[in-house]
């Protein structure tokens, strides 16, 4: 398995630089009215997309998943998959309610 695989110091710094820039972008973008410019929810979408990308980088490089066995990949993916199940099936109720009450 992981015979000390990693991206070395430059690699780590590179990932860090990416995370840094992404954080700045998140912040700046949050102050723009993307909802008005594009479509409602655009702000949310962008913010979450950036967060997701950041997470992916941390998981792959800082947490070395990039070099791990399929099993570890499976563990990572299933964690998020289950989370998605919880979101999807809960919302499936809320979003299909009639508006009586709330």
């Amino acid at each position, binding site marked *: 398995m992981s015979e000390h695989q990693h991206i070395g110091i430059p690699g780590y710094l590179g990932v860090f630089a990416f995370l840094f820039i992404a954080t700045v972008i998140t912040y700046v973008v949050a102050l723009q009215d993307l909802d008005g410019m594009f479509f409602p929810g655009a702000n949310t979408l962008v913010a979450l997309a950036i967060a997701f990308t950041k997470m992916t980088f941390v998981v792959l490089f800082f947490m070395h998943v990039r070099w791990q066995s399929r099993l570890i990949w499976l563990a990572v993916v299933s964690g998020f998959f289950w989370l998605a199940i919880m979101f999807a*099936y809960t919302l499936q*109720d809320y979003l299909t309610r009639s508006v009586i009450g709330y």
Partner: protein
Amino acid sequence: MENVDSINTGEDKGEEQVNYLTNGFSIKSWLLTKDHKRIAIMYLISVSVFFVLGGIYAGLIRLELLTPASDLLESGSYNKVFTQHGVIMVFFYLIPAIPAVLGNFLLPIMIGAKDLAFPRINLLSLYIYWVGGGLTLFALMQGGVDTGWTFYTPYSTTFSNSFVMLVGLGVFINGFSSILTGLNFIVTTHTMRAPGMTWFRLPLFVWAHYATSLVMILGTPVVAITILLLAVERLTQTGIFDPALGGDPILFQHLFWFYSHPAVYIMILPSMGVISELISNFSRKKIFGYEFIAFSSIAIAVFGFLVWGHHMFVSGQSIYAGLVFSFLTMVVAVPSAIKVFNWTATMYKGSISYDTPMLYAIGFLGLFLIGGLTGLFLGSVGLTVHVTDTYFVVAHFHYVMVGGTVLGYLGGIHYWWPKMTGKMYSEFWGRISAMLVFIGFNLTFFPQFILGYQGMPRRYAAYPEEFQVLNIFSTAGASVLGIGMILPVIYLVGSLINGKSAGPNPWLLPGLEWRTASPPPTFNFEKTPVVTWEAYSFGEDSGLDIDEARRESRVSPTA
């Protein structure tokens, strides 16, 4: 097969071997042990205490329901009694029962490991269980809870005057015990298998525990956080579940059932694992459709997460959601069906013994069948609208939980008793009590189906008179059931004193656990076994010396 033989002779009748029980007698050697077998024994004792307590509550419930009026217990106490019965039975008995006792004891042995991957975490999980259980018992002594085991809001957050926080805390803490057990099992199954023990040579018991562990890992944290939110809301009197504060009680139900439906599979899957072992071994035949049983466990674990909304059909969730959850509920029933059919097919052309564990297994088949099929009634959304929150549900879940899991647990305890203690129990009393449990059980809970369809709501301290006759049957059955459950306690404990010595392999079975001494030594095997045979193979390749055993069987304890 030399390695097999060398394993098989755990009983080189020479010096009394040191086994895990005789390896240190001080209290400290128990409390600080890292041996999974000792931890399992401590779990066995603790779980039994909770079972007896839960059983006493059950007795009180049944006594109160003998008459329509609420006379033995006034409604406040009755509410506490059934709540505590549910909480104790579910969280402190049924969920830990098979995994933490039988799984803990046997899983490492069955895969040929020295111990679980993380023995200290295993011990920690026991301590967490004790702390959680202790807190709950403390809360009960302070006055108990009356919210129902489901803790529905806003009653639990705002209206109940009972010890919701304390019990919630107990359940919350206990959850981590279950998470850690699951974690240990997953890792152990992945990394600790003996040479030659491939995935498809694993006993189905191990597969079942693997599937269970998945549910424990992915489900339990959700109920933990939910109960935490509930406690914080109760503490601060603001929050997200009480509509008076702008919250939403249905969100609580979603979060609660996201765990608690999969939790029913935490309860049943290990028992199904036990049944696979029992049916195959006591028919002395390879299990029919090994892969299908193995994968159906995983399928149940995964799809079990998609159906929680079937507990909320009338809760006010959207009609659309109700339909989707109903559909998925039907889909999860299929893997269970596959298992039932495979078990039945396994008996075909077997050589079936009538020993106690097998009686329990047959009992399981019948009762789980009824419990599962009535689950379909409940999953069929149009029908549930009528029967939900009635005794139909009560009957359903006792059929699966008692008829399924408890019977599987008892069968397993009998089956592995010689391994765990080195002593044979009394076969005569074993059979008697198995029959009593079966009869008493049906008498108790079958009438409740009828009551339920007639419309008797659950959690009622007093009920209209027209329901009394069936309730009398139910209470009578519970008495028989109670006797059936007490008996094993007596004769099993008795066997420790005067039971016959069991020998490493009293039934001459191929599983790895039967290839080491009874009770096993601390590190399970004298030498790491090398597995060269398929699971449940009784033929040539299993290396069992049948002729020798036959010759000996004239003096064998099972004769």
